[in-house]
């Protein structure tokens, strides 16, 4: 039976903060075989890919009021966590570039993000504010080896995206 450690990032999200580092820190503290129970104010799609990379399967359920409970369970408990090749879980550095693309005509936000991303040094990050989830951008980031994390602010008006260049 998997034991879950609770991480509630709803207060951080409501305050307009970025919960990624808190989640990654909690992940670091997990014992082999333990899972993470995450509470968030939106369904954290972008996190699913990041967690899958780290060997966690997810199961999300809405708990009312648009809030979500997500269980991240170790897919193959001990070996995945103990693997010497597992990705470092350091915090991403502070963004080197900050873009506010909220008032640009689509698809200009995507053009600017890809343009700025190409200028990043290895491992650097950029952050961008958007009106919508940039669904057509993600396949291009993926093809170029970038990683990203994003989600809507609690009021749903702004999508915050962080993109990290391959190191």
């Amino acid at each position, binding site marked *: 039976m998997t034991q879950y450690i609770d991480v509630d990032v709803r207060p951080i999200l409501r305050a307009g903060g970025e919960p990624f580092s808190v989640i990654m820190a909690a992940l670091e503290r997990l014992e082999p075989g333990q899972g993470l129970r995450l509470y968030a104010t939106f369904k954290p799609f972008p996190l699913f890919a990041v967690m899958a990379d780290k060997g966690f399967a997810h199961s999300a359920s809405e708990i009312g009021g648009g809030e979500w409970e997500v269980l991240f369970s170790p897919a193959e408990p001990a070996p995945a966590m103990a693997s010497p090749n597992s990705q470092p879980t350091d915090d991403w550095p502070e963004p080197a570039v900050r873009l506010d693309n909220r008032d640009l005509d689509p698809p200009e936000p995507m053009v600017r993000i890809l343009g700025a991303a190409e200028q990043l040094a290895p491992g650097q990050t950029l952050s961008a504010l958007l009106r919508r989830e940039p669904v057509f951008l*993600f396949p291009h980031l993926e093809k170029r080896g970038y990683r990203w994390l994003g989600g809507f602010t609690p009021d749903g008006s702004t999508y915050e995206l962080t993109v990290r260049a391959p190191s």
Partner: protein
Amino acid sequence: MTGTRLSRWTMSYFAIAVAWLIAAEALMSFGFGFPAADLASPDTLVLVHIVCIGWLSMAMCGALFQFVPVLVGEPLFDERWEMPALALLTAGLATLLAGFLSLGGRLPVGLWLLPVGAALLAAGFALVVLDLGLTIWRARPPVGPAHFVFAGLIFLAATVTLGSVFAWSLSGHGGKALDAVLASAVPLHATAGLGGWLTLTAMGVSYRLLSMFMLAPEVDGRSSRLTLGLGAAAIGVAVAGGLLTVAAETGLPIVLGAAAALSLAALALYGRDVVRLYRNRRRRRLELNTRMAAYGIASLVAAALLGGALATTGSFAAHVGAFAFLVAFGWLSGLVLAKLYKIVAFLTWLETYGPAMGRVPTPRVQDLVAERRASKWFAVYFACVWGSTAALLVNQALVFRGINVVMLIATVGIVQELIRTRQLADVAAPLRLPDGTQAPRLLYSRN
């Protein structure tokens, strides 16, 4: 979350769709089918199914295969179903049309073509409904416009089911019960198709596309759900209630009255939502697609007013052809053509320049189109639609044909613009194909 990939076959759906549209307009220009022939004649059935399945449904399916994943933020349930669905729909439609032609004595082949065509169409639409429906279902709870698409798919299934019953009946295999359905339920089949499937889906899609292309805040979910609820109730009452009256052999006027009242309420709410979208937009200068969409929506309003006026004066049955023409060509075709103009440009831009974006200078989406030239064709198209409707209302079949020739030319003009966009013909030379890009194919996308 891996985002949304380009749908490989959306352009193929669009290409086949516009080919059927041109075929339909050419037939009307030659005086084939209504109004030269009776509204219920086999020739008119050929025409109506070319327009509703070949043109409108094909274009809608192609758009939805790309749009639904964007809407729900999840990949399509299974991309591999797109092409078989297109093949089945095309083969099914061709067979059904041959069946109608043989029904009218123009082909000697045989009536067995009708149920075979219907079965092929049902198989193709089943793939579409399942693929899109499961995509939405998997991403539940669905967001605003996805509700509309979901309801539209249910009515598509109802339309196909009724149509299959008719096909069996017309081929002489119906039996008494199915023959009774054929005798009275043709208007219900048309209502489910034009109203439930095409109109509700177009409304849902328009909410998102208008807000996206005009930088307007999304319509509040509660408001759009009420619009959908009333609209779906109107069509549901008409179709389900209508079938009950077929069985009970009484009560049709009450059912139609209730459905009409619900439709008007739904249209009023839709109108309010759309006006709000246009008014609250942050992009002040409208692009061609949103200007022309407004003409399409105005045609819907005009159709509602016309329908109301005809019903009150008791002449709806006499002029149902003009009413249906305005709905099919003004509202649905007008909106679809306007949106195709933008969607083709956007998808072509993304396919061609996405891989090189940020690395070399790339053109803007608007550099792929020549709006001033295209807007002339659109203006002529809408003028012809309204002129044709008027000609039908005053029973001027020859004037109708004449206007249709001009409408055909305007449509070919619009299609020519779509092809030029696909060929990057209007992009200035230095930016046209920078390093790392390759020219798109006309009929499908590399994804």
